[in-house]
């Protein structure tokens, strides 16, 4: 008893320790339905699983579902759409609180946060688990490639944007915007690293390769060079030309032969596709939403593309022989064998009226509807269209054809035309696919190039950047170009008995009242961002020399 009593303090200590251990064990609950990050990076494959998030539409959707085309195609005067906030891009009347503008900004910064997370946390955790340096470096290169591209979109829409490299460390800081020049430098650093560390060909088609980064870098240099007042402009043109030529000559990649299927599922990750947002049918946010957003009701399920179409001005761009036209937009009499397959295909009519005279489908003001990226119903493409705005056709971020054109534009440089042999060659490859002859006078002018680009890339969300580069070169020219489009003109029914034929409609020119001014060439920082971080309204600072 005495022994027991004399040792009681030990019993208490040991007893308490056991109790505390049991208690700590009881109170530690590891997640059961997901992997703790510290346990995640164990093999090379885990890094690949992590970086695959960078390509997924699920990650890009806030940017790509609406903003990408509203800004990319409505601002550029290619896409007609007048409804409410969505139509504000068409009217150039967007305000800082436009919900889609906010979405686009958020979507791009979200992709950057994913890339940052990989860049900042993956290497140490992976190294600790013995993952190979090669896999780590490649993961870093993929992340920096995507980050560079996201910043490029940001700076082309918003000019001066904040560079965020570490979302956690910067959380409690007061943030300012950074000058566009420093953003360009940052992008060049990211893409250069990516170019030097990515493989020529990834085992998984669709992932970034050396050529994706290099092609994009060429386009970035071209954009930088277009600021003709930059003393290094010529150097940047040279860089753009050199890199684009390298892709053209050494990548072994080629154009997809048939423009008509270039935007269908079968063309996913084809050799022309340098980089694309990967789309799958797996619910809302996972797939291509263009099909649903753009298709006319009779061409797809749950579609709301009735009120959208190519502007009259875009329609005027196409040569009647241009084979691309039918696959960019639908016009009276066009036949699409792969849409409504069960009924033997779809023939486009501007309006549809049944025997009783009921108007089943009304003509829109453009007497045309969008086709690019529109692939019909689930039955038309073997289940490749879901019902939650998710179609399985990828959305291009960079096509080889774009790199060709970048090469041509870099050859033109600050001048007006080029006769560079390779430029003429690649230019003719694009035209020949469109069923058009090569350039006749063996000299491609700047205006010809912009025209060709507009026809080739209409509705891919990138034509506004051509106008932006034109604006950097020459503000007056770019504004005159935009205002010369008379983009509000449309067809209005003038004879109620002739609703199904074009003759029943009159082109109303008096509505052309959209006047673009220089300040509208830069999008406003979203109002919710300024409200949350008022310092974003301050003048931008140089990221490298603060």
């Amino acid at each position, binding site marked *: 008893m005495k022994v027991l009593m004399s040792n009681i303090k030990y019993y208490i200590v040991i007893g308490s320790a056991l109790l505390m251990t049991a208690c700590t064990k009881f109170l530690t609950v590891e997640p059961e339905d997901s992997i703790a990050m510290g346990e995640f990076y164990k093999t090379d494959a885990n890094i690949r699983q992590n970086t695959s998030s960078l390509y997924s539409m*699920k990650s890009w959707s806030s940017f790509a579902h609406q903003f990408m085309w509203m800004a990319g195609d409505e601002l550029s005067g290619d896409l007609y759409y007048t409804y409410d906030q969505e139509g504000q891009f068409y009217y150039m009347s967007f305000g800082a609180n436009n*919900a889609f503008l906010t979405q686009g900004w958020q979507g791009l910064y979200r992709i950057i946060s994913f890339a940052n997370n990989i860049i900042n946390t993956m290497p140490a955790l992976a190294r600790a688990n013995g993952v190979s340096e090669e896999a780590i470096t490649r993961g870093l290169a993929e992340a920096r490639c995507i980050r560079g591209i996201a910043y490029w979109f940001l700076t082309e829409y918003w000019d001066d944007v904040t560079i965020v490299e570490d*979302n956690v460390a910067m959380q409690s800081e007061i943030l300012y915007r950074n000058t566009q020049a420093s953003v360009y430098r940052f992008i060049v650093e990211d893409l250069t690293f990516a170019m030097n560390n990515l493989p020529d060909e990834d085992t998984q088609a*669709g992932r970034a390769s050396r050529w994706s980064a290099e092609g994009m870098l060429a386009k970035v240099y071209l954009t930088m060079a277009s600021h003709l007042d930059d003393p290094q402009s010529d150097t940047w043109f040279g860089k753009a030309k050199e890199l684009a030529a390298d892709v053209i000559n050494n990548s072994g990649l080629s154009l997809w032969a048939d423009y008509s299927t270039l935007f269908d599922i079968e063309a996913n990750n084809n050799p022309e596709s340098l980089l694309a947002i990967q789309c*799958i049918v797996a*619910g809302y946010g996972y797939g291509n939403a263009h099909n649903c957003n753009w298709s006319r009701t009779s061409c797809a399920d749950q579609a709301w593309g009735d009120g959208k179409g190519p502007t009259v001005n875009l329609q005027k761009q196409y040569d009647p022989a241009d084979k691309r036209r039918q696959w960019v937009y639908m016009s009276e009499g066009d036949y699409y064998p792969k849409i409504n397959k069960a009924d033997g295909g779809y023939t486009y009519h501007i309006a549809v009226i049944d025997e009783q005279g009921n108007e089943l489908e009304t003509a829109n003001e453009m007497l045309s509807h969008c086709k690019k990226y529109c692939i019909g119903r689930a039955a038309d493409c073997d289940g490749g269209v879901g019902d939650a705005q998710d179609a399985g056709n990828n959305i291009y971020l960079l096509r080889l054809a774009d790199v060709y054109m970048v090469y041509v534009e870099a050859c033109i440089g600050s001048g007006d035309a080029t006769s560079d042999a390779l430029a003429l060659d690649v230019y003719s490859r694009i035209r020949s696919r469109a069923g058009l002859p090569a350039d006749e006078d063996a000299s491609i002018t700047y205006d010809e190039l912009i025209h060709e680009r507009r026809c080739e890339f209409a509705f891919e969300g990138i034509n506004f950047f051509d106008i932006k580069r034109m604006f950097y070169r020459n503000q007056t020219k770019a504004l005159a170009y935009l205002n010369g489009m008379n983009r509000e003109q449309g067809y209005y029914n003038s004879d109620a008995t002739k609703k199904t034929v074009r003759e029943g409609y009159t082109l109303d020119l008096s*509505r052309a009242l959209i006047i673009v*001014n220089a300040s509208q060439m830069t999008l406003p920082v979203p109002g919710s961002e300024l409200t*949350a971080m008022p310092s974003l309204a301050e003048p931008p600072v140089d990221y490298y020399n603060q």
Partner: protein
Amino acid sequence: MLAMSQAREVHGRVMDGAQSGEPMIGATVMVKGTNQGTVTDFDGNFVLSVPKEAVLVISSVGYKTQEVRANKTELSLTLEEDTQVLDEFVVVGYGSMRKVDLTGSVGSIAGEKLKESIVTNADQMLQGRVAGVQVTQNTGAPGGATSIRVRGASSITGDNEPLYIIDGVPMSGSGADIGGFDWAGGSNGQTKVNPLATISPQDIVSMDVLKDASACAIYGSAGANGVVIITTRRGEAGKIHVAYDGYVGLQTFVRKLPMMDLHDYAVYQKDLYSQGVSTYLNNIYQDPDLLGRGTDWQDAVVRNALMHSHQISLTGGTQKTQFAISGGYMNQDGTVVGSNFERFSARANVDHEFAKWFKLGGSLSYARTHEKIINNDGESGILMSAITMQPDIQVKDKDGNWSGPSNLSASANYNPVAMAQLFNNRLQRDRIMGNFYGQFNFTKWLNLRSEYSFDSNTSLNKGFMPTYQFGVRINNINKIYQREEHSFYWIWKNYLNYNQTIGKHTIGAMLGMEMSRSAWEGTTLQKNNLTGNEIQVMGEDGTFVTNSGWKDASTTVSVFARANYNYDNRYLITATIRGDASSKFGPSHRWGAFPSVALAWRMSNEAWMKDVKEISNLKLRLGYGQVGNSNIDTYLYAAKMRAYASTFGTSYRMATNANPDLKWEASEQWNIGVDFGMFNSRIDLSVDLYQKQTKDLLLQPSVPAIIGGNGWDDIATPMTNIGRVRNRGIDISLNTAPVQTKDFQWNSNLVISVNRNKVLAMDANDTPIYGNIDWYSEFQTATAIMVGQPMGVFYGFVTDGLFENKEDIENWAVQVDDGTGHNKIDKNTGVWVGDIRFKDLDGDGVITDKDQTVIGDPNPDFTLGFTNNFTYKNWTLGIVLNASVGGQILNYTRVKTEGMTSIWDNQSTRVNDRVQFGYYDGDPENTDVTNLYILNNISTTLPRWNTTDVNRNNRMSDRWLEDASFLRISNISLSYNFPERWMKKIHFSSLKLYANIQNVWIFTAYSGYDPEIGAYNQQAGKLNIDAGRYPSPRVYTFGVNLTL
């Protein structure tokens, strides 16, 4: 005649045994076996004419009833205090307490008071009954969730619902989730359903609300939002009783919104077309005079709906064993077609004294609920669709098929009647709750109680979206959705209770520990393209679309102690301390300590107060305490990966940035109260002043999107402990018995709650947190939680009338820049006559985001509940009034019904009063801006029609705010208790019949369906936003209570 002739007058005086020498005021004196009687006056005197040999029964609340033979003409007697009645017990945490000994702030409703109105869910019983408790129904849908705020909201991102303790089993007040509707496209609707829906209200015998920290602290972390202790019926020794409780009710839709009929709509459409703002005119609108009223879609989606409820219970027992068993069934159709709620419940409680030193018992309950939930609150909601549906479309065509638009281009609108019936969520919940205890009585004053409780839940949510054809609108993909969820919670409590009275000292102490574990898991699964719409089972048929799954758990360990000391029933002190640990925090921040102390002084028991005969009770209370909160997701102190499908197989990314320093949110509360009773409690007044300050709020800070976000798609910003929120207020509760005569009694209960909520601090930069309505709307910063303001204030622009003419536009601050710093004047792409002028608050000449400000507050100035019961002989009439004064509603419904941007949406008749143009030169063809002015109706606030709305007339502004004040006659009930002597003849114990009207009338200036909006999905920052809320019905019920 004989009796009358022998009647004589008796004079008597009744004295108060509790206050010697004082007369007894208001005691009832009855002649036994008759309904003759009277009450004593202020001097305790009475005069009564009685037959010879009569026996008088003298009674008063709180005193022992006496019987005396009226054999003298002068009587003098003394009523003794009935300590058993005075020892009215109130349930507090881990035990009960004499009400008079309470030091904290506790509101109770028990017994008959619970039956004063007909409710489908127990939480509605609290409405207007307990001061400081604000109850709003978030939806009028059967089984919908309720928002309950005990002394205001303090948590910003978590919900603010109280903790419920049902017979010892804790249950969170936050609603259960359903899968919503967005999986099939469109807006999601409210996804929270009522957690209390699985409890039958008829089983409940008392509800005690612990309001202040000193009362709640014993629940530690879970008690931060107040605690509601629900006690169900237990058996009593004696005769076995069988009781039946049942009612049938008819529910009606109370108010309609004034929408255009077909004629008005055609006139409107034609006008738009002729003005050139619309480019399309349906042929049928050419001649409006040929058109009738068309379809009234509101009438089409609502109905008079039936509800009925039945409950049978069996109670009784011996001195050693008591039991109560009950079973019930309730079925309620919603007033909007397609919605329904059904509940089956059963409960058994048993208590047994095994030996003097050992008692054991338990309760077990089972409930199954089945709900049909329609899409509500949101743009795709049934009501929202019904009000905007075009009136030219029939509900069904002549062949009996569902109708729809005849033109594919109509951006509208599926048939809401068809959708409500074809497309709804079915939710089936099964809940088993149990509680078992054993109590060892070591001595008379020391016992140990060990309690094990569990709560097992299964919910199964099924949705089916069929293929359909509504006119030309065709859906040829059907979809099936299933969500299953299982949870199991257990808690094991052990506590020692000590209670002893030594002379004038009463000492109590409690020491205990508990541990709990909550585990949950679930899956969702979606398939498409089933062969037909008939077999709605998640089987082999159809194509797989997506699924998800989750599984998680959390644990807590707590130790707690409480000490009470009572000196001579005059001085009381209660002190508690509780240590809580939660698995939600990292190893170094797991434990939190939460102390409280409360003092009370029963002044009325002081010798010098005995002389003040009018005052029967006077008690002062003072309390202070801290309560914690851990209402967050699990494992936020470390990082985990999120998996999702991609082209390259499963993708992983980080889900949330971790914060290893995450710790308990703590709220610090003060309470000063006074209980005041006069004239033998004929008047009882309780007033409490409180302050509740919550700090280290657990929240995800609001960061600009450049840093991150908090959505599912984001790598969420880390949860942090920041900010401070204060609630101050006054709870007033006044119980009176203005008339107490033999045949007629009037009891009234007035409850007034005043709460002032204020955010004192946010993060280091005091960044506000904004709340949005649907991501695709412009209302992204419509509500705000910002320093210096109450939570959830409305944030937006201030309107200042309409542009009257060209000069007016030119001279106004720039709303749409033409590129030269002036207003762009253009019908489609700029500002135009008849657009709304917004105030340039910062005076910089341009309307920008900086011109937004706080434009309204959803929080009421005060709320009031006023209950009156009039009893005349066997009749009882009850009238309940509820009022909420002050506060505003954001009527988002009007953005759709008065927004005037889509020609496909039906509009409110108010749109007929929209601005009309006059033409200076008299030529309506000349639409040049210089020729325009606003015609006659300059007083209108409704702008011009415009599809593009470049001026953003529809932006978030005070245009959409309305006064939320209302006075509601919530309930009128009339019941008749059959006289006992009749009942005896047919061997009934009691029989009561009643008729009841709920939601009788509402007085309000609000233009929507119902000014009682609540919180969207119980979120603190989204109060009083009306996005097509399912309004509460008016209910006529007829019921019977029968006991054998």
